[in-house]
Structures are given as C-alpha cells and as structure tokens.
C-alpha cells in the first residue's frame, strides 16, 4: 500500500454491539466497536481472550449481524442485511481462514479449493491458488495426508482462490509451530500484496503485529487503540 495517494475506506464499523443471550443472562461480546479498513491494507487484531475479536471478525465477514450499530462494505449496508444478501456478500467478496482449517475431509486439496471456485464469479484456477501457497504438488492429497501447516496453507489457497476483496483470518497460526506459522504468515502477506485483498488477521502473538500496516487492540468488547506501522516487517524478522 502506498502512503502518498489518499487511502480508500472500504469498510466502516460504527458502535457495533453484539449480545448473546445465554439463558437468563446477556453476554455483551461487543460493546460499541469502531473500525475502518482501507483498500489493500493488512491489519492485525490483538487482545485478550474474550475481548470480542472473533465476534467482530464474524460481523465483518457477514457471518453474523450486529445487535446494534452500523456496518458498511463500500456501498452495501451489512447492518440489517437479509440472510440472502449476506450470503451474496460472502460469496462475492470475502475469504475466510479458520484456526482449525476446516477443510472438508472427504475432498482433496485441489477439490477443497474448487469448492470455492465452483461458486465464485471470477476465481483463480485452483492449481494457481495452490501455487500461491506452494502446494501444487500436494493437490491430490486428502487433508488427513497433510500436516497442520499444509492444511492451513490449503485453507488459505481456498480462501484466496475467489480473489476476495476482504480476507479474514481468525488465529491462522494458532495451531502451528513457529516455523510453520512463519510460512503461513508469509503466504498471507504475499497474497495480500499480489492480489491486493484487504486482510484482517486475529492473533494472540503481539510480535506478528509488526507485519501489519495497522494494529488494532481490542479490550472488553471495544477497539481500544489503533497504531500504524511505518514499515511492514518480514515474517523472518519476527521473534516469536
């Protein structure tokens, strides 16, 4: 992302709240979170467990709707979107990477990617997507035949294969060791650069924040601080 042209805001969240009703008590997962995301940037969300990171990410990705507040993707209002509209939003614009990969066990690496390219309007070729994560040679392997890191890279290939405008990753390295985690972060950074997808990444590892253009810290259901990094570090420079 170049800093001399004024950045385009693609996603605006204002005073988002999300309440879960658990029997008698209401759990306030989000209590008024504000956030803007700019085209093509990579942001990191930090914060203690239970601070509402996943909840916010789910709202951004159209997996869920806020209890109150407003949320806009470019000119789409996601606040009160219907299920069909949210589905279309996810289908056309969003890519997800999950902590536990969530690959379909009965499909090979390539078929898992094809699951997404089958329904996307302008997808990459599944092989191309696997190239991006360096796993083309493993395309015919089933998830059970891949290591955790490899599974996560397939999951990334699957998320980026639709050329998403927004790539959301919830603790993508949470289940991985340092070296593998680095590899995965590299891939994410490269995809962000090469495809220009606005990327939001949740992590518990503060060191990873150095990779980002901007860092959001969440506490108690709100965005507490936002800091910008002058330069983005390389994953190999990160101390875990």
């Amino acid at each position, binding site marked *: 992302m170049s800093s001399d042209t004024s950045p385009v805001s693609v996603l605006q969240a204002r005073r988002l709240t999300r309440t879960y009703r658990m029997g008698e008590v209401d759990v306030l997962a989000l209590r008024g979170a504000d956030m803007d995301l700019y085209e093509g940037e990579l942001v990191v969300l930090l914060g203690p467990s239970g601070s509402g990171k996943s909840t916010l990410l789910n709202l951004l990705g159209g997996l*869920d709707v806020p209890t109150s507040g407003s949320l806009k993707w470019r000119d789409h209002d996601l606040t009160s979107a219907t299920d069909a509209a949210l*589905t279309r939003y996810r*289908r*056309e614009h969003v890519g997800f990477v999950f902590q536990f990969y969530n690959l*379909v066990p009965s499909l090979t690496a390539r078929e898992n990617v094809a*699951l997404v390219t089958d*329904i*996307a309007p302008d997808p990459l070729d599944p092989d191309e997507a696997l190239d991006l994560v360096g796993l083309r040679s493993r395309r015919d392997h089933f998830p059970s035949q891949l290591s955790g890191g490899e599974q996560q890279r397939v999951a990334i290939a699957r998320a980026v294969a639709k050329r998403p405008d927004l790539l959301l990753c919830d603790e993508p390295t949470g289940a991985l060791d340092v070296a593998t985690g680095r590899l995965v972060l590299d891939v994410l950074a490269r995809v962000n650069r090469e495809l220009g997808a606005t990327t939001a990444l949740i992590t518990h590892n503060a060191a990873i924040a150095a990779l980002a253009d901007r860092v959001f810290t969440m506490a108690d259901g709100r965005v507490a601080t936002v800091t910008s990094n002058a330069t983005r570090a390389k994953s190999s420079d990160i101390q875990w």
Partner: protein
Amino acid sequence: MVTSLTKKMMRDLVGQAVQVGTIAVVIGCGVAAFVSMRGTWKSLELARDLYYERYRFGDVFVHLERAPLAVRARLEDIPGVALVETRLVEPVRLVVSAAETPPPGQVMSLPSDGRPRLDDLRVYKGRPLESGRDDEVLILSAFAEAHGLALGDTLPLVMHGHQFQTRIVGYADAPEFVYAIAPGEFMPDPTRFGVVWMDERAVAAAYRMDGAFDDVVLRLQPGADPEGVLESVDDLLEPYGGLGAVLRDKQISNKLLTQEMGQLRALASTIPIVFLAVAAFLVQVALGRMVQLQRVPIATLKAFGYTRGEIARHFFAMIAVVGVVGAVMGLGVGTWFGRAMTDLYRDFFALPTLSFRLDGELVLVSLGVSMLAAISGALGTVLQIANMPPAEAMQPPAPPTYSRGLIERCGGLAMLGPAARMAARDMLRRPLRLMLSIAGIAAATAVVVIGRFGEDAIDAMEGVIFDHVQAEDISVTFAGEVPDRAVRALGQLPGVNLVEGQRAVAARFSSGGVYRDGALLGWTPDPHLRRLIEWPFHTVAAPEQGLVLTAELVRVLGLTVGDLVEVELLGRGLPTVMLPLAGSVREPAGLQGHVGNDTLARLLGGSRLATHAFLAVDPQYETEVVARLSQMPSVLGVSRKSAVLASFRAQTRETRSAFVWIASLFGAALAVGIVYNNARVALSARARELASLRVLGFTRSEVSGIVLGEQAVHVLIGLPVGLFAGHQAAVAMMSTVDPETWRFPVVIATRTYGFAAAVVLGAALISWLFVFRQVSRLDLVAVLKTKE
C-alpha cells in the same frame, strides 16, 4: 462438470456405505413389497378384465330344475336384462381311469350353431366341437393336464346313469372357471374339478332335456337395478325349480378371485408403508448424526457463501441417492418376486393372459414413494442445517443436556452401574427416538409373524378338515338320491368297516326379508365318519329333533332359538317349510342347516334317502373298494381322503415356503437396518466418551455394553410388542375373508412366535457383531485428539 460439492457427497456416501446400504435395503424392501404385490394385483386385474370382456362373462347366474326354451324370451323381456344365454349344466361322472373316480364333474352344453352369447369358452388347444357330433367333448384344461388326458383320448362319461364314449378334441377354459373349485371343497384342486363341454343336442338327449334348459346367464343393461332383476328372475323361474339367481359377487370363481385380489390389494397398500416409515426413521437418525459430524463443513460452506438452498439441495441430493438406490433395488427384486407370485397365482387362477407387468406408473410411484420416505426423514434435519447461523456453527456443539428424569428420581436407576446408567439416561433423553425404534423392531417382528402365520392358518385348516370333519376314508357322491338300503349295501363291500349316509338338499333360509342360500343336511343319528364340528374342535351331536343352523347364518338372519325359520327347499315340487330354530353351531365353513335324516324324510314326504355316503375302510382294501365303487352306475364320484390330503399339501407347500422366506428376509432387513443404524449412530455420537472410558480403564466389553445394552433394551421391548402386533395384523388379515365362507379364529402357533423372535434376534446379533468390532477398533488416541 462434477462439482466439488458433488464429489464430497459421493465420498461421504461411500464412507458410510454400510449404514447407507442398510437404509437403502429397507427402502428396497418396501418398494419390492409394493411392486410385487401391487404389480401382481394389477396384472391379475388386467388379465381378469380382459378375459371377462373377451369371453363375455355374465352378470347374473341361476340354475334351475327344468324350463321350456320358450321361457327364454320371457327372461329377455325382464327390464334391465340386455342378453340371455340358456344352457344345460349337468352332473357327470368322468371316467378318467379304472382305479380312481374323481368327484362329480359338470357337463355343459354348447350351442350347435355358433358361440354362446355369454360365458363363452376359450379353446386353447385342439379344435372346437364339430357341429352335430354327439361324441366329441372339450375338456377343462387344468383337469385334463392333471389327469394326463391328451387330445384324441377317449373319455367315457356317465351321464344320467348311462355310459357314453366320447373323444377329447380340445382343451378349453372359461371365465366362469378361473378358480376351478368343486362345490363344497375348500381348496382348488385341478384333479378334482372336471368340466366338459358337449354339443347341446347330445347333452339334451342324454339327460332327456330336449326343448328345455336348466341354467341361465344374464347380462345386465348399464344402469339396471341388479336386485330388481334378481327378484324378477326368481319370480319367473320359481315354477321351474329355480335355485335362486345370484350376481357375480356370489359366482364362486369370481367371488374367490375377487376376495384374493382384495387381500392382495390391502397388503400392497399396508406392508410397504411400514417399510417406508421405518426407512424415513432411519434416514432421520442417520442423517441427524451425519449433520452433527458435519457442522463445521456446513458452516465453512456457508462462510464461503454457499446459499441455504445450495446446502439443502446438497443434503437432499445425498438422501435422494439413497432413495434411488433403494428404489432400483426394490424394482429389481420386486419384479422378480412379482413374477414368482404371478406364477404361483397362475397355478390357482386360470387367466390366459396373466403375466407380471411392471408398468411405468408402478415405476414412477415406486421412485416417488422412496424419495418421499427418504426426504421426509431428512426434512427436519436439512431445514435445521439450512437455518444454522454460520457463525454459531463454528463452535463445537454444547454438551447435550441431561437431567435426572422422573424414573431416576424415583430410584429406578439406583441399582445400575455407571455404564448402565449412561445408557439409560441416553435412552430416556430421547423418548421419541426410543419409541420409534421400538416400533421399528416391533414392525420387523410382526412382518415375520404375518409371513409365517399363513402356515399356521393352513395347518389349522388342514386339521379341522382332515382330522375333525372328515373322519371317513372314502366319500361317495351318488348320481341322485338313493334309498337307505343302497347306502347299507356299500357296507357289504370287502374291507368296509362302517358306512354312513347323508342327504343334502339345496335350500334357501329366510327370516324377516333376509335370505341366504345354502344346504340343508340330513344326518344319520350319532354319525362317526362325517361330523359336525364346533370351535374349538369338538364334535357336536347331529340334531335328531329340530333345526340347527350355522351360527353365522343365525347371526345374518337375526334369529334366536325358538324363532320360526322359513326353509325353502330348492328344486321342483319341493316344499317351503317353517321350522323352529333349535340351536346353532359354530362351524368353520359355509352356511348350512342341519336336521335328522328322518325329519328331512318327513318334510319331503317320503322315505329316508341319501345323496352321499362316507366309508371307513381297511387301508389294504382301499384301492379295491374305490375300483368297485367306480363301477356302480348310481355313483357319480368317489374320493379318497388320503389322496385329497396329499394333493392339498402339495398345493400349499410351495406357496407357504415362499411366503415364509420372503417375510423372514424382509423382517431381518428391517431389524438389521434399525439395530445397526441405531448402534452405529450411538457409537459415533459417543466415540469420545467411550474412548475416555477406555482410557480410564474400562474394558472393551464394558464399553460396548453401553452402546449395545441400549440397543438390547430396544429389541427386548420391541419383540413382544411385535409378536402382539403380528397377531393383531393376522386378525385384521383374516377379517377380510368373507365370514359367510370361512370363519377361522386366528391361531398362531408358538413356533411361529419363536421363529419370528429368532429371526429378529439373529439380525440384531449380526448387527451387534459389526458394532462390537468397531468398538474394539476404537482408536483411543485419535478419537481424543480430533475435534468433532
């Protein structure tokens, strides 16, 4: 192009092949039952309609003593009558061999000029009669084949006491003899029902019936009032000894054919429903579990933007595959069963065009109902998936809620160990599933009971007929009424130990405007050879004073003991008498009146006569006695009980074993489907829990005991319920039998219950072995490591 989603579906199906297979088999059984029974029914209907239409089967039938041909025009004048055919139908003795004489047969007249207008016959081998020849006959094909009579063979006939030599020129059958059963017999037996057709002049000459007829067939005009026509016909033929006109529904062949088809139709619309309902239940159980396992993949698909519709379609398609596989198997097996059933029916029903037809409608309905069963089982679960919010589905399912239910609070589970308590809580947590599963096991058991019950019914029938009613060795039908001394003379034959006569007169019993036709039997005092039987199997003394009626007849006529019954003795010049009802007897078959032979003689104003004689004979003399009887001009027919019994057994053996087999297979398939799926699902749902127990030090058998113990409870409750349900179903099946023909209390033998229980337990054991193997292979580390 094959989408990834389709591939996923196919692989998921293959991965669950056994479970999916058992469900498909249950669907297949339902379709097979439907296709075979419904298809056979439709084939019978088609063949019957075609035959009746082509050979102009009549609407009204009446036999009489003798009427001049001129009366025919008056029959034609009755309003509502479209066509009239008059003919001669006479009793005849068919001399098929020197050694054996079958029971009396019928000789029927054929017009010398052209075909009968109604109740035509089909000559299917050889040629029609040559006009004017009095020595040619056509013969009922089943009878000819049973006795090995060939075209061109000489067939001596004893007509009206005189023997005539005739030659067989053709084999024939006719719509009025589709079910060729001799009057007074219980089962069709082709060796015992002989019919020959002869030129009308030959018959008239032999029986001195020139210019007369004694049998009428009518065709009604469309919209005619059948009861009105019957009344007019009876009034018109009264002076000519009319025996009472009947509609098609009382014509014996048509009546039994209709009854059989009705039963088949009822079965065709109930049995398959049981299977398809069980299949729906299994789909619900299995798919419910599969969806539990697939929460994350489903949520992932949703996160990627797959719509509800696409996901719902995916699961429906998966289920539809199971439905289609089941339907295709069912169509294949059903066609095969249907052919076999139709072949069996061909032995009983002479329907020339009868062959099993699988028509498009049947195929479509089969596919439709299997889909319906599969999809209705899947509906709830699939809707639940489609509406599952993608974000929430990302979390593992919350632990299911258990509570100490009523039973437990009352101390019901206190004495159980922890493993048994786990199983018990699990069952009580899903009472509906528990009940459906029990119902399924019960259905499986009941299906086997019903399949085998036929054997018990036939055994009971055999017992009552051959052990209780017919205590004679040989029965004789006389060519007319013979004096008592002719009966006594039979006792002089070598080897004859005992002889008793009986007189049967056709009669119409009426009271309060209701009437029924039957026979009035005149009994010798204290009979030993032919006996009056009442349920449950005890002999009733034959009446010497007064009239005793079949209990069913008493019921139909609304009589009580002491009431006067109008008994119209049918036959020319015979009186109508009023007799007080002295009692009733719960006979298993037919509608009869019973009086002492002396009473009957008095009513008819003459001496004691007999139409039948029953003989007890030394076994080594039997053949000789039969041969001697066959030579007597006064004897129309002779039958040997041992031969009849052998033929009865041969007739029924094939049918009964086929039914037992099919029903057992179906019942076993149901039981396997239920037990295997339930156990499999329970195992999968609790793999983690069970593996934890193993880690804690529980043994394999203790752990499998939890899963299997639960299934054992289903089976142990389902079994007795199923035995009872089978009994009830048998009662319902028997209730479709016309109570005026047969009244059989349902008796199910203990061995039938034992057999059904064994089939279901065996099926359950096999399923358990499968599951036990899976428990043994439970990979403790893997199960605990992977996230659901």
